[in-house]
């Protein structure tokens, strides 16, 4: 799978400075905006698939020693790596922003962490929801669907910033057991949805590219 990830890295290389710029701009705009940068990075696998489709890469890839599972899984892994990378960049950018703004009293609080965790969570879920449709219909046809999903996510984020903060306060302010249960259920949900999504994507990929 290393070769597949390397290929996607080369394909997306030119997009990375944009991501960096966006992350920095958001960091200076305020902590809660970082979530958009994380979500943008979660969608980079879709861009990589668009390039693959344009060059009919999948047919060439079928001549290489990769299983369908590896071909599909590599896009999920790419998304997850991008989420982690953008979170790290966001955190660094925000620390720099705080220093530049001379915010001597800057202390990462619940809100700070909840934004990152919320962004990562939404990113993972978005990957899991979008990729099966992209695998089935292709980027162009799935564009409408994922535009709706993105709009939906943006609306949730905008209207529920308070909700995310409150949830974070609630989770971390609750008893250890309640917090543990909530975090565990959330993680389990993300893992289950991702596993199910990967299985569906493999099946769609097989049907679309091998029949």
């Amino acid at each position, binding site marked *: 799978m290393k070769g*597949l990830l390397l290929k996607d890295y080369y394909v997306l290389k030119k997009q990375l400075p944009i991501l960096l710029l966006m992350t920095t701009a958001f960091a200076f705009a305020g902590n809660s905006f970082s979530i958009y940068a994380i979500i943008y990075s979660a969608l980079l696998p879709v861009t990589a698939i668009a390039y693959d489709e344009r060059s009919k890469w999948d047919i060439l890839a079928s001549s290489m020693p990769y*299983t369908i599972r590896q071909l599909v899984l590599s896009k999920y892994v790419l998304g997850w790596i991008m989420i982690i990378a953008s979170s790290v960049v966001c955190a660094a950018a925000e620390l720099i922003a705080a220093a530049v703004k001379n915010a001597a009293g800057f202390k990462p609080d619940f809100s700070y962490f909840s934004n990152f965790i919320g962004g990562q969570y939404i990113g993972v879920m978005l990957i899991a929801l979008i990729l099966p449709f992209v695998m089935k219909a292709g980027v162009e046809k799935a564009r409408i669907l994922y535009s709706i999903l993105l709009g939906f996510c943006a609306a949730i984020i905008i209207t529920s910033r308070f909700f995310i903060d409150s949830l974070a306060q609630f989770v971390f302010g609750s008893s250890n057991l309640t917090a543990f249960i909530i975090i565990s259920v959330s993680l389990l949900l993300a893992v289950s949805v991702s596993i199910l999504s990967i299985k569906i994507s493999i099946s769609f990929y097989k049907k679309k590219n091998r029949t």
Partner: protein
Amino acid sequence: MSNKNAIELKGVTKSYKDFTLGNINLSLPSGSIAGLVGENGAGKSTIIKIILGALQADSGEITVLGHNVKEKSFDCVKKDIGAVLDESYFPEMITARQVGSILKATYDNFDEKKYNDYLKRFMIPENKLFREYSRGMKMKLGIASALSHYPKLLLLDEATSGLDPLIRDELLESFSDFTEDENNTVLISSHIVSDLEKICDYIIFLHKGKIVFFEEKDKLLDEYAIIKLTSENFEAVDPESVIGKRENKYYTEALIRKDGIPKNFKCEHTTLEDIILFFAKGEELK
């Protein structure tokens, strides 16, 4: 399973809404070069994709390098396959140098030096984006990529189409070099019959989704000939030996089996292209 054959297809079928690839039987010996020829839409690319496992056949058995393509182990066999496919390339945002890095991470037996030598030999710029390449350059990079991990089977789908004669000749030479090792096999599909005539041991003629013939090239050239006769003289020819013919008001030109040529009748110079064209005409008349 015998490894004497690099490719074996038994009763392979594949149906689409408006096209059927019908009952394909094929045994291609290891160490040979076979040319797959046929009109647009005859099913050449479909066969190559089926051999690669990139398409699932509706029925039949496909064995490549001794392994059934339906087996899970076939994904590992692919390290011994090199493919250059028509209009299927590396993504346009990457360079030849980056392709080398991707292949190095993909194939255990990738030879970076060999790949770089091919880039030099084919004069492929290392740092130019793939989207800026001409078709010739794209194909040459495809061939460099396909040959640099020591494959045993090379599958080429229209790899020489649309290229100028000089580049084609250069590529054909590299395919011939490849089969200097008697374990290496090439299956090449092309419209350019003269290219196939230069390098192939076997010719597979596919017409409307069916194999019309799969024969040794030399045997085809030995066995068939073109004759050009007046209509009266043509009546002396055994109709059973006529494969295909075309008539005008002055003469009849026909491809016939040499054993059916009446004595004292002179044969015309016959090329592989003539044989294929007349076979196609014969099929049309059936």
